[in-house]
C-alpha cells in the first residue's frame, strides 16, 4: 500500500484494508452472534440441564446439581444396549449408503453425458424436497405385509422384513442417501478424467484404478458424506417410531423422557451420548486428515 492511496481514503477503511482479520471479524460478527445465542446457548442449556434433577411430586425441574442422570445413562444396562444398537444401526446405514452412493455418484460424474448429469443431480435432490414424514410413511406402506416389497419378493420365496430394526435401517439409508451421494459426486467431479485414463494407460483395469486412484482421492468426500448419515441416524427417532416396530434407539429414549416420563434432565443426559459419539467420530475422521482436504 502506497502512502498516496491511503492518504486519499478514509483512515478507518484503510485500516480495515490492511487488517484482513479485523475486516472478516466485523463481517462475521452478526451471524456469529446469532449462532452463538441460538445454537451454542441452547446446547449449553442442554448440557447444564443434564446435571439438574426432577421433583418427583411436582414433576418440575429442580436446580440441584447432581451426576445421577449421567451415571444412570452410563451404567444402566438399558441405555448401554440402546447406545450399542444405535451406533450399530448408524454404522450399518452409513456403510449401505456409501456402497450405494459410490456407483451412483461415479455414474453421474464420470459416465453420464452432461444432459444426464443434470437430470440425475435433480433426481437425487428431489426426495429432499418431499417431507421427511411422507417418505417414512411411504416406506411403512412399502414394507407392510401386503405392500409392494412383499408383492415383489414373494414370487421368489422372500418376505418383507416387517417393522423392526431392518425396516428402520432400510428407511434411514434411503432418507440419508442424497446427503452421501452429493459430497461423493462433488469429490469425483474434482478427480480429473486424465488420472483415470493415465491409470488405465499404465495397465490398471477398472477395479484396480478404482482402488488405487479413485478411492484414495475420494476419501475426504466419502468421510464427509458419512458424517451426515452417521450423525443423522444417531439423532433420529421418528423413522424408528414409524417403521421400527418395538425397537428403540437413543432418540426414542430422549423422546419418551421429554414427553411421557417428563424427565428433562435424564433426556438431556441421554442426548449427550450421541453428541459424545459424534465428537469421537469427528476426531477419528480428523486424524485421517480428511477434513483438511474438504
Amino acid at each position, binding site marked *: 500500500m502506497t502512502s498516496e492511496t491511503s492518504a486519499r481514503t478514509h483512515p478507518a477503511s484503510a485500516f480495515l484494508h490492511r487488517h484482513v482479520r479485523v475486516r472478516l471479524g466485523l463481517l462475521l460478527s452478526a451471524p456469529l452472534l446469532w449462532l452463538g445465542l441460538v445454537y451454542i446457548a441452547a446446547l449449553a442449556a442442554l448440557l447444564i440441564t443434564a446435571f439438574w434433577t426432577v421433583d418427583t411430586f411436582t414433576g418440575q425441574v429442580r436446580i440441584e446439581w447432581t451426576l445421577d442422570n449421567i451415571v444412570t445413562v452410563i451404567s444402566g444396562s438399558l441405555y448401554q444396549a440402546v447406545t450399542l444398537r444405535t451406533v450399530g444401526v448408524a454404522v450399518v446405514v452409513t456403510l449401505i449408503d456409501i456402497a450405494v452412493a459410490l456407483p451412483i455418484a461415479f455414474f453421474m460424474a464420470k459416465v453420464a453425458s452432461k444432459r444426464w448429469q443434470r437430470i440425475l443431480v435433480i433426481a437425487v435432490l428431489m426426495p429432499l424436497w418431499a417431507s421427511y414424514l411422507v417418505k417414512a410413511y411411504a416406506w411403512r406402506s412399502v414394507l407392510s405385509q401386503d405392500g409392494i416389497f412383499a408383492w415383489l419378493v414373494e414370487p421368489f420365496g422372500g418376505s418383507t422384513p416387517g417393522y423392526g430394526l431392518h425396516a428402520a435401517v432400510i428407511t434411514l439409508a434411503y432418507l440419508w442417501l442424497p446427503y452421501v451421494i452429493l459430497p461423493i459426486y462433488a469429490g469425483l467431479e474434482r478427480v480429473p478424467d*486424465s488420472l483415470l485414463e493415465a491409470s488405465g494407460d*499404465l*495397465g*490398471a*483395469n477398472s477395479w484396480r484404478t478404482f482402488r488405487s486412484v479413485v478411492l484414495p482421492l475420494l476419501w475426504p468426500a466419502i468421510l464427509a458424506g458419512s458424517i451426515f448419515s452417521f450423525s443423522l441416524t444417531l439423532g433420529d427417532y421418528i423413522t424408528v417410531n414409524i417403521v421400527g416396530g418395538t425397537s428403540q434407539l437413543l432418540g426414542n429414549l430422549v423422546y419418551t423422557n421429554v414427553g411421557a416420563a417428563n424427565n428433562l434432565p435424564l433426556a438431556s443426559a441421554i442426548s449427550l451420548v450421541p453428541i459424545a459419539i459424534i465428537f469421537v467420530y469427528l476426531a477419528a475422521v480428523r486424524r485421517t486428515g480428511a477434513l483438511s482436504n474438504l
Partner: protein
Amino acid sequence: MSPRWTGERTGRTPAIRLRGLTKTFGSVNAVDNLDLDIAEGEFFSMLGPSGSGKTTVLRVIAGFEQPTAGTVVLRGQDVTAKAPFDRDVNTVFQDYALFPHMSVIENIAYGLRVRGVAKAERLARAQEALEVVQLRGFAQRKPSELSGGQRQRVALARATVVRPKVLLLDEPLGALDLKLREQMQVELKELQRSLGITFIFVTHDQEEALTLSDRIAVFNAGKVVQLGTPTEIYERPSSPFVAAFVGTSNIFEDALARAVLGRGGTNSVRPERISLHSAPTGESTISAAGTIAEVIYIGTATRIIVDLDVGKRITVLEHNATASVESRASVSDRRGERVHAEWPPEAIVALDSDSAATLGDAAPAPQGPVGHGASIAPATASKIP
C-alpha cells in the same frame, strides 16, 4: 517419403498401422478416413493447427476413444476393440496426469505395481527411471511440490519405466518456458534414441517438430495433408496450407507466378532463399524490383518486407551473420530503399493448390518420390538426402 521409414519397403511390420480411421463427434469429423504407418523406433510427429484432430488420433491409438470407423493395428495385432490397459502403448499427457496422492517414486512405480512386479524390484526400476530423467533426490516429493519441467519428467519416467513399444506424447512441452522447452527437446530425443521406443509426438510448434522428428505428418481438418521428413516438409511443401503453416512462405499464384517466376500454378519461395541487391547481379535468372516497406530486427536475422513493383508483398530473411554490420546499424534507414530481390530457380516450389489431401495416405502400393514439386523443379529433389 524417406525409404528408411516405410514399412512396405523394408518389409517390417510397422509399430502402428491405422487404416480408414474416422472419428466423428456429432457433426464434427475430428479424424477423417486416416491411413498411416509408423515404423518401429521412429520419432514421428503430428503437426497441425488447433482442432485438426491430433489429440483425437492419439486418444484412439491409446484406446481412450473408440473410432467411428477404421482399425488400429499395433505390431500386426488388431487392437481396435481392446481396452487401454490391454495395449502396449503408453501416454504422456498434456497435463501430465500425475497421481496427486502418490509420491514421485510411487507414481513412477505404479505401472509396475499394477503388473504385479515385486516391491523391491519395482522400486529399483523406478529409481533407475528417475535417474534417467535426472530427478534423483526427488523420489519422496509429491507432484504438487515439483515445477512444471520436473512434473513433465516424472510423467515421462512413469510412462517409460514399463518399457512400452510405443510412447504417445501429447504436447508434452506445451506448458514449459522456452529455455526449459529447448532443454527438454534435447533430453526427449536422447531418451528416445537410448530406449529405442517409437515416439508419436503431438505438437503445434512447427520448429519443435522440425528439430525432433524422423517424419512429420501435417494435419488439417482431420486429414494428413502432407507426410514426410522435416526436410521434405520444409523444403517441398505440397500445398499452400503446409507452406504457410510450416515456416513462412512467399506464395505466388497464377498470374503473379507467370509475371515474376515465368511459370503458372501456385508456387512458393522461402524468405531465406531470397537475397536483396541494389542492382541486378545477373547471377540469377529471377530478379524482381521493389521497395523496402519494413525492416524488422529479430536477433539472429532481420526480416525485411519488400513491396514488389508487380504488386506483391514478399518477406525476406537476411541472416545477420552474413549481412554487414553497417546495414544492421541503420535498419530503419533502409525503409523506402529500392532493391532487387533475387533467388535461384531451385528455390521455387510448385504447390498443389487443391490441398493435396491424397498425399497423406501412406498407400501400400510402391511408389516413387511423392513430392509434387519434384516433377516441376527437379533441382530440389537432389537436395533431399
